[in-house]
């Protein structure tokens, strides 16, 4: 864990976080965003100074099953609604963008 210290949000850190977040920023947006991000981070960093914390206990989690019961019935309408939203389609042949690099 990194030491709690006042963080300086520079453009390199913003670019690094943006890459993790899969977000592209235009160059002209970056410096303004870095400033806002610094302000927001300073705001939430109040919690770093709080020493008295509770205990998260697993017993608080309600004893429910995580197996869902799916709805029975006709799903043909849903299938068509879903397929209509593909960018390119020929019958049941659906085209999406290439994701494998050469």
């Amino acid at each position, binding site marked *: *864990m*990194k030491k*709690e210290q006042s963080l300086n949000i520079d453009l390199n850190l*913003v670019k690094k*976080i*943006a890459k*993790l*977040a*899969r*977000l*592209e*920023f*235009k160059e002209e947006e970056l410096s303004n*965003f870095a400033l*806002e*991000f610094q*302000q*927001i*981070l300073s*705001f*939430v*960093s*109040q*919690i*770093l100074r*709080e020493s*008295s*914390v*509770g*205990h*998260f206990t697993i017993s608080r989690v*309600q004893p*429910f*099953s*995580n*197996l*869902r*019961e*799916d*709805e029975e019935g006709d799903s043909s*309408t*849903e299938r068509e*609604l*879903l397929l*209509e*939203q*593909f*960018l390119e389609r020929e019958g049941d042949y659906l085209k*999406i*963008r*290439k*994701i494998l*690099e050469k």
Partner: protein
Amino acid sequence: MENYTILDLYSLYQKKEVSPVEVVELYLQKIEAENPKLFCYLFTTPELALEQARLSEKRWACENPLSFLDGIPLSIKDNILIKGVRCTAGSKMLENYVASYDATVISKLKKAGAVFLGKTNLDEFAMGSSTENSAFGPTRNPLDPERVPGGSSGGSAAAVSANLCVASLGSDTGGSIRLPAAFCGVVGLKPTYGSVSRYGLIAMASSLDQIGPITKTVSDARILFEVISGKDTRDFSQVLPEEMPEEKEKIVIGVPKEYFLSEMEEEVIGAIQDFLELMTEKGYEFQEISLPSLPLSLPVYYVIVASEISSNLARYDDLRYGKKKVKVERDFWEYYFQSRGEFLGKEVKRRIMLGTFVLSTGYYEAYYKKAVLLRENIREDFLRAFKKVDLILAPVSPSLPFKLGEKITDPVKMYLSDIFTVSVNLAGLPALSIPIAFPKGLPVGIQFIAPPFKEATLFKIGEKVEAFLSQR
């Protein structure tokens, strides 16, 4: 046109003084005339609404309504899915997305015979407190169109306030039902976390989101809540009590000292003080309580909500939801980055970035894990207080509805609007926002906060408060 409540219309339908089709046509005409100025609705669904109204009319003709909601025209916040209807979440990313299934709350409303007039405007992906973050333009407050209606369910609250629908459904993650209800002078309920299914609600923060009613009266909120709540096997985050808690006759109301801040606007403080005096005259007992973890609610909330947002919004890669307009000849990763950069708005990106940062290696322990533990402190404070009092009274907003543009360029200033609401979501509690005064013609709302699953207590006190406020 009459400012109908659910109960008013139910009675009129029973007496055959008006029909569902007539009412729906009137509302659609009114929306066409007034929506361009207020922009409550992103779009209407007239064909669906009239088809539902015609079916309702047949049932009423046979004196066989499905429920109190049969033929009642509602608006729905545009992050709740209706099958075959666009659902944009106020975002360019989902501009062309058509829902392929009904949210559970929508299925329940359809079975109850309700009518859907259209989808209402919201802050993009429900992130905001003013509805100014909508990618399609802000909604204006019907009580003063130069001011915000609150957010993120601003379109819903404004539509109810302007009588462009009888009632609406919104969603509340950090105050997004209660704040717009307070800013528009209407009633808003944030239910106990887990009591209303989130299936079909576009997820923002899964441990905080709840769908709830925005209505003209407390009785209407009760009717809507009773229809939309209850077990749903498709939402395994639901938590329902084995037995409903008993209702008490005499209620003691806690007033947390941490909630009354010097930074609040004078009109808000004045309205609440007058209200407390009135309640005391009516025989209600108040007790000062302390919720010591409250001052940290906002930063804790924003760490947790941003973390969950960064996870929930990772799915928006411009491939899965809705046909895209832009054909870009770049490889997948470049396209993924670019489309998210282009189609997601500033506030959404801020929160994704914050969430990504606080969940990243080296910061996770200090921020996210700490916030989760502090959340327990906040919840414990409330539960401890509820051993001494039955309800807690608190402001909804530190200010009257502010002007459009006043806070939008300062994200932290905007976040401070949520100061009184987020702790309720962190603790998973129910809360009811009711308008209590209109200083300078602008509404002030207060919220009653109850222990888990005590919505009945909220409705009971809410109805009494409404009655004696109307006599003043």
